[in-house]
Structures are given as structure tokens and as C-alpha cells.
């Protein structure tokens, strides 16, 4: 109901930390810029994770997952729920919550939503994902909490001073983890047999089937990878933006923008797109207006669609109507 809310709370949080960062008077404009940049790269890496999963699933099964943002919102909520319900220690809760999520929203999503729906076409499936997004969001609100909840961070919330810029350790950790995951994914796709099969499936399922690749299993694999990427994104973003049912709206929106800016059909494009959106978003919040910072990536999207609709890394489509 409130697409601005997660960012508002996130922004409050970030600006609070910025305020403490900016107190030392030796902070120059440059240092401030670097701090915004690092924060942008960090959130951008998270958008990239969501955008990559989105792109993968889109490529292999024509699924435009409008619930992608909720996919990132929910794992953190599930972890907190596991703590609340079973009183489980954080590590156990994390395992339960994450495993449950990958099972339900990786495998289950594919089998229960995509498979029966794709028979009727891409449009009903897209609408089904919208219904799913409502169910996930309202479910998190009803079953968990309507308020934002703290999510434990796996690194201390200290800051480092680099060239006079106060850099949050959390941001650095996010960047490190996100890039490690993306790197691992790249290695998997390019360097392993399974990964290459998956890539072939993504590029052309018909040809892949002729080549004897188990296309169905590969499609399922992309859904599992999508869920896993969502989990990573969720665990990374929630300590900063807190865990809240409505977080998915903005994350989803920015993931779509990242995917389109990057070229919509490429993993590399999604990464670049995510980083651009994250950095633009962070700089806009810092220098432009915190009320309208959300608008800047939206304007970016409109500019891209006007000037380079195939995206920065995409290829032009041939067939015209």
C-alpha cells in the first residue's frame, strides 16, 4: 500500500548513519561523494542480484515475475518468523527460513504456478505472479508484522575511514558478498557443464532440447537459482532497510529497471543495470531530494526506453510488427 515506506524507513536509517558519519568536520565534499558512491554500489549489487534472477527466469521460461521484489522481501521475514515461532537460534532460523523459501519459491513456484499457467500463455502467468506478490506481501503483513523489524547484521555496524570518507562496514560486506555470489554464478554458467547447459536453455530452449539437454530440469534450476539469489539479496539488504512486508515494491521496481537498463536478456546487463540504478539512487538521495529520490531511477528508465530501448548492453530486436 505504501511504496515509499520501505525507502523512507531505509533512508531514515541511512541518513541517520550518514549524519553520524558526516559529523567530523574534516569530511570534504569528495569524501561525502565516496560514501554515497559506496552505498550506491552496495544497494546496486543487491538490485543486481534480484535483476539477475529475474532475467534468468524470464529467459528460460518467459516468466515475467512481478513478485520478484517480494521474493527479496520474504526470506528475511521467514527467518525472523522462525526465531519468533520456534525460538530457534539465529543460525538455525536462518537455515530453516532459507530452506523453506528456496523449496517453496524456487521449486514450488515453478511447479505450482509457472507450469500450469504457462499453458495459457505469458499474460495469465504474469498476472498470476502479481497475485502471488499480493499474497506474499499481505501474508507477511498478517502472518508476521505490519511494522518494520530489525534484522541481525552479520557484520558489525562500524564505519571505516578511507581517504577521509566514512565507509560503512556493512556496505563493504554487502559488496563483497554480492560480487562473490555473482562471480560464482558467472563461473557456474560459463565454466561448468551444467551451467553451460543452463545457458543454452536460456538462449534457445528449442535448440537445447534438440541437443539433448534436459530442458525441464534446467528451467527448474534457474528457478532455484533465482530463489537462492533472492535469499542472498534479502539477507544482505534487511539489516539496512529492516524487514518489512512492503519492502518488495521498491526492490522489485528497481530490479525491473535494472534489468531493462541493462538489456533485459543478459546476466551481465542486469549486473551493470543494478549498479547504475543503485548509484543513481544513492546520489539522488544525497544531492537531490530525499522525497523524490525514488523518482530519479524512474526517470532513468523512461530515458532509456526513449533513447536506447534495447538497454545499455542489449542487442536490437529484429522482428517488427
Amino acid at each position: 500500500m505504501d511504496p515509499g515506506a520501505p525507502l523512507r524507513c531505509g533512508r531514515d536509517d541511512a541518513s541517520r548513519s550518514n549524519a553520524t558519519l558526516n559529523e567530523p568536520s574534516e569530511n570534504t565534499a569528495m569524501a561525502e561523494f565516496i560514501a554515497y558512491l559506496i552505498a550506491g554500489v552496495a544497494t546496486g549489487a543487491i538490485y543486481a542480484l534480484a535483476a539477475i534472477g529475474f532475467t534468468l527466469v524470464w529467459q528460460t521460461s518467459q516468466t515475467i515475475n512481478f513478485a520478484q521484489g517480494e521474493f527479496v522481501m520474504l526470506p528475511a521475514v521467514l527467518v525472523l518468523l522462525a526465531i519468533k515461532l520456534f525460538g530457534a537460534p539465529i543460525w538455525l532460523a536462518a537455515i530453516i527460513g532459507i530452506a523453506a523459501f528456496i523449496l517453496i519459491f524456487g521449486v514450488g513456484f515453478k511447479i505450482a504456478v509457472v507450469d500450469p499457467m504457462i499453458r495459457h500463455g505469458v499474460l495469465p502467468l504474469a498476472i498470476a505472479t502479481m497475485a502471488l506478490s499480493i499474497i506474499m506481501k499481505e501474508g507477511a503483513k498478517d502472518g508476521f508484522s505490519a511494522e518494520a523489524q530489525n534484522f541481525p547484521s552479520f557484520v558489525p555496524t562500524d564505519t571505516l575511514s578511507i581517504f577521509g570518507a566514512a565507509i560503512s562496514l556493512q556496505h563493504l560486506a554487502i559488496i563483497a558478498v554480492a560480487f562473490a555470489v555473482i562471480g560464482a554464478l558467472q563461473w557456474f554458467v560459463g565454466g561448468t557443464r551444467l551451467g553451460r547447459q543452463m545457458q543454452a536453455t536460456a538462449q534457445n530452449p528449442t535448440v537445447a532440447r534438440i541437443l539433448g539437454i534436459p530442458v525441464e530440469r534446467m528451467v527448474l534450476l534457474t528457478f532455484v537459482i533465482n530463489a537462492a539469489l533472492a535469499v542472498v539479496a534479502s539477507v544482505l539488504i534487511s539489516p539496512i532497510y529492516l524487514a518489512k512486508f512492503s519492502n518488495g515494491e521498491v526492490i522489485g521496481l528497481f530490479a525491473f529497471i535494472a534489468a531493462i537498463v541493462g538489456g533485459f536478456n543478459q546476466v551481465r546487463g542486469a549486473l551493470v543495470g543494478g549498479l547504475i540504478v543503485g548509484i543513481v539512487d544513492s546520489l539522488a538521495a544525497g544531492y537531490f531530494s530525499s522525497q523524490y529520490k525514488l523518482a530519479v531511477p524512474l526517470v532513468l528508465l523512461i530515458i532509456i526506453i526513449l533513447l536506447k530501448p534495447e538497454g545499455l548492453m542489449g542487442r536490437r530486436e529484429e522482428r517488427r510488427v
Partner: protein
Amino acid sequence: MTAPATKGSAGLRTTPARAPTLGGFADGTLITLALGAVILWFAPSGMGRYGTYVLSLWLVMAIAVMGLNLTLGYAGLKSLAQAAFMGIGAYITALLTTKTGISWYAAFAISGIATFAVGLLLGFPALRVKAHYLAFVTLAFSTLVWLVMRNEQWLTGGVFGLSNIPRPSLFGFKLDGALAFHRFVVVVTFLLAVLLWWMIRSPWGRAFTALRENPIRAASLGIDTRMYTLLAFAIGSAYAGFAGALYAPLVEFIDPSPFSLSQSFFLLLMVVAGGAGYLLGPFIGALLGVVLPEWLRFAGSLYLIIFAAIVMLLLIACPQGMSGLIERGWAWITGKNKAGGGR
């Protein structure tokens, strides 16, 4: 399999007998619309203010869903900004009637024209590329509109919204009472539904169906797919603007929350629940989405979840929605149309 030897006789049976076609069905639709309007005119007697309000709300939402049904159900486009368009209409009407004293009728027209124009502006670049880009552009637009509504306090009142929105009068009669305004809403809804009915039966409607089913073939038959797609989207958006123009005086108070992105999703689900591509579908969809939770006193998250889950089940079992189910049920009762359904 052999071609019939008779040439003339079959071909001579031209216009008059056309019962089983779309034409016959649409006439049934018009009768249903007229009957519905009459029933709804009298329905609120003994329902009280609140019951009457819920009925009016149903119709207003049905107008927005009708527009989206044109965009989605007939032209096959995903617009995720229907609630935002409704918001634009509502705010334009509220601002014009409260701050400038312009008559509601002028505000209504301006709301429709403005949303139509914005639809063209948004649709043109998006549809130049690929149809599903429209989904993302409208998604972004929806968020932008919401931001403006919330942040521009000097204009929109921000989260506090705008209140004391006056209701229109007709030939000097004040329509302030719940019943009088309800009847006004019935008439406006009926007129808008008939306009849409006419459009769907006209060559435009045929072109819309063609470009949903097979845009490449449609283009090869001279159908300017870009223009028709754009028109479908812009007209669909204008219906949201009209709905907003009725919504503002109905509720007499507006704030940004009913025009958020979630609401746009919800409106799409109503289209699907009622039956995308069926002219009467939006009324069923809005009934399930708006009236039922009010009457069941069951509004809020839980109802949303149940509604969304039902829509998903419908999508699997019967993508034609409730209208499709009714059609199937009717075919089953009358015991025909088992095999050659065509779908």
C-alpha cells in the same frame, strides 16, 4: 472434407440471421446492461446510506476495471497504472471542483481527456519497443504519481488528502444524498458501458481482438497495430480517469492510498476474476473485489490474500474468469457446445 457444390445458396444467407455470433451475444450484453441499470436504480431502497455507498463504489470501480479490461482483455496489454490513472482523475476533479469552482461535468471531461493524453504519452515510447515494456513503464509511472500525490502537499494535501469534495447537481437538482448520487452513478456507468459495448462491436473491437491474438498477421492485413494498441491503452486509461472523477465526489475525501501500485495490481486481478475480454466481466470482478469484502465485513489483508489465491486458481482452471465459468456452466445446463467450443 469435400467442398460443397452449392455456391450461391449458402452465401446468400447474409446479415439478418446471425444469432450464434458475437453480434447476438453482444445484444444480450446490452439487454443485461439495461436491466442491470434499472435494477440498480431501485436497488438501494431499504439498504441505508452505507449499503447505497457500497453499491455506488462497486459501479465506480467497475468503470476503472472496464477500462483495464479494454487494455488487457481486448488488446492484451498489461497496464500497471490503472489505479494511478484513477488517482489522476480523482485529484483533478477534487481540485477543480473545490478550488476553482468549476462544474463537476467539466472536471469529469478534463479528467478523461487528461488521462487519455497521459496514456498516449506513456504508451507511445513504450509500445514502440515491445508490448511488455508498457508494464514496466506504467509500473514506474504508478510510483511517480503516488510520490507526487504524497509529497506535493501544497497541491494534493499530501497524506492528509483533500476533503469536502462537492457532489454535482443535475438540472438544478442537488445530488448530495446517497440515493440521488447513486442513481447518478448508475446513469454514468451505464453510458460508459454502452460506449464500450459499441466500441467492441465496431471494427475497432475487431482490430483489438486481432492484435491481441496475432499482431503480426494483423499488421499484414493493414491494421496499424501501433495505433490501435495505443488507442486501447489510452481509452482504457481515460476510463480510469472517469472512474476517479466519480470516486472523488462519492467518497468526498481522497488521499493517496487507494491509488497505489498495489491497487493497480488489485484492479488487474479484478479484470481476470471477472473474465478478461468479456464486457460484463468487470462488473463481476468489481463485485468480488469490492462489494463482497464490504458485505462480509472481511476487508483487509486476509481478504486480499484469499482473493488473490482464488484468482490464481481461476487462472489455472479457467483463464476466462467467472464469465468463462458462467458460460461453461450455461453450456453444460443447456447441454450443447461440448465439443466445438473453439477455445
